[in-house]
């Protein structure tokens, strides 16, 4: 069983007037096939933790291990390429590409030959949507494209930062279902940072982050 383990993670923002320590020894364990929700008040270190989990930032203290191998050892770029994909609140799609082309980018990076439509259909988007430029799609559709891209990259860990923050309630529910399927059916480790109570209720496990520590 694939496991992502974080142990004694500490992180300090040193580029401030006064260094700010946001993570103060965070430890947790994430297993495949489960949906995790991380909650906490603003400034509790949720986004910082997510950046470290998705290898967008260097670990200062402590460690993150995937199947007992430190991501320091794997390398941040390789970890992002082979093990983790991140879904943002603001979607972060490549705007001059169509939905299919955005997904194709992830397929290309994964080094596979696959049909992007397959992943788009999985998140409820049809061929018409697939061929449209992403900036012509609605917020919900764009978020689905971002999730389809994460699916297409075929990585074992999916990290999402407020993925339903910009969506209406109906769309939010559909997106949560997609994440649940990713965890339960595709056996991925899905970690969602969220303020949403609805999302937290659907998670298999909720981690509360408070003052830089998981409670």
């Amino acid at each position, binding site marked *: 069983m694939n496991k992502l383990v974080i142990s004694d993670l500490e992180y300090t923002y040193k580029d401030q007037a006064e260094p700010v320590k946001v993570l103060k020894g965070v430890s947790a364990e994430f297993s495949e096939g489960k949906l995790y929700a991380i909650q906490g008040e603003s400034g509790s270190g949720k986004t910082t933790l997510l950046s470290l989990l998705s290898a967008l930032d260097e670990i200062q203290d402590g460690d993150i291990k995937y199947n007992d191998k430190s991501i320091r050892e794997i390398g941040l770029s390789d970890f*992002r*390429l082979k093990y983790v994909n991140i879904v943002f609140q603001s979607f972060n799609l490549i*705007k001059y590409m169509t939905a299919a082309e955005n997904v194709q980018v992830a397929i290309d990076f994964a080094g596979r030959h696959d049909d992007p439509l397959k992943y788009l259909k999985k998140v409820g988007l049809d061929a018409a949507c697939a061929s449209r430029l992403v900036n012509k799609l609605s917020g919900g559709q764009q978020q689905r494209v971002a999730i389809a891209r994460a699916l297409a990259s075929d990585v074992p860990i999916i990290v999402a930062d407020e993925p339903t923050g910009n969506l209406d309630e109906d769309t939010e529910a559909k997106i949560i279902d997609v994440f649940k399927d990713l965890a339960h059916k595709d056996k991925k480790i899905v970690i969602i940072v969220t303020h949403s109570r609805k999302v937290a209720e659907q998670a298999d496990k909720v981690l509360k982050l408070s003052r830089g520590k998981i409670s």
Partner: protein
Amino acid sequence: MFKNMLKRSWLSVKRKPGRSIIIGLILFAMSNLILAAIVIKSAVNEQMEYAKESLGGTVTIQADMEKLREEMGDPSSKSFEELKSSSSSAPAKFERPSVTKSVADKIAQSDYVKDYTYSISSSANDDALTAIETSGGNFGGGFGGRMGGPEAEENSGDFTISGINSYAFIQQVKNGSMSISSGEYFDEDDTDKCIISVDLAEENNLSVGDTITMTNINNNAAVTLTIMGIYDVSENMFNANTIYMNVDTAAKFISSDDYNNGDYKVENVSYELKNAENAEAFISWINAEFPELAEKNLTASEDTREYDQMVGPIESVGSFATTILIIVIVAAAVIITLIVMINVKDRRYEIGVLTSLGAKKLNIIGQIFLELVMVGTVAFALSTATSTVLAKTMGQGILDSQIASSSEASEKNFGRPSGGPGGSFKPGAMGGSSSSTDDAPEMSGASNSSRKENENVISEINISAKPSDFALLFASGYGVILVALLLPAISILRYSPKKILQGKE
């Protein structure tokens, strides 16, 4: 990976037509100027090479003026007493260094030599002929006679005898100012034949086939010459009393002493080489085989004046093209750098997304490079069709202005020596010997021919782009793109994907 990079690059180029067109237009303008400059430069080099080949290398043997000055002593370095004593004594007779015919002929046996020429000069009289009055008021003696001192004056005849191997070697023929108006030209086999000027022929009612009897002023021996041609010269200050013939015939007009049993002194010794590249080697060979030349204060040197004059304006065009090339490359690199910097800033989210998907930053830099290469390739390819026209217009325009300014300079210098140590200096006139004259064939080039010499200048630039020029354009174009990408690449390497994707960059 490269295929994916290429695919993303193509999408970016295709989906951002505005940006691609702007960069394309800049690269098109740049490549037009670069290719025009390359083509001009290549045409200039080719034409200079051709000029060198067509003129061939010429090595002349002439007085080593520097050494002569040293030996005569620089008056400015002498003390008052030395000057006083030297001025009170009789002036030392200056012996003009010269080559004998046998030495000149021996040198010509070298494998380097294609053809050679020398001349002798003298003066003669013919009581039956009326000499043309020159602008100086005198007849044949003129400038040379006065330069040569009392002896020269005594030995001056009314007519100048110029002996040269062939008509084709006469300087005025070479620079295009002399032509045969009737009859034929002579060569080395035409003994006792001559060509005379139109003015002299008209004054004395002479025509081709007539004979004239000239008298050697040294021994009064009469030599009958058949007129085989009548020449016309367009130079203003040319002495119309000059009679040209081959060297053997002209030798009949020098004194017995100077004749020296046929091994007489010759002037304006000039060797045309088979290959211009061998000039240095030929000079070294002369110095090694004929050390007596240096002892006599003679020196062998490459004569590049004709070449320099011919290629002068076009060489300036080449320099101008180089300047344009450098300016355009630098300007294009700066402009493209700025555009790509702005472009990279605009695309930071894309860069962040690609990085979050595991793309290495070098991969992203490669993608942007490929985008520029795609646009550049189209721009460079289009410029191959248009730049030749630009090069022709630009090259010919610069060349015309260079020729105009050099003609203007020639007009201003008209009548003044311009040929350096040789110039219009006539060594034959200085010794006061029987062979002195003022109108020796101007192998060393005289300033009064400067107007005509401009006719030899390369006045048309033959522009045609070759595959090597295109290759150079593409290489330099891609080079500019690569250089222009350096600064944006640094900024990409400094981007933090975390900050970009969290909207903090």
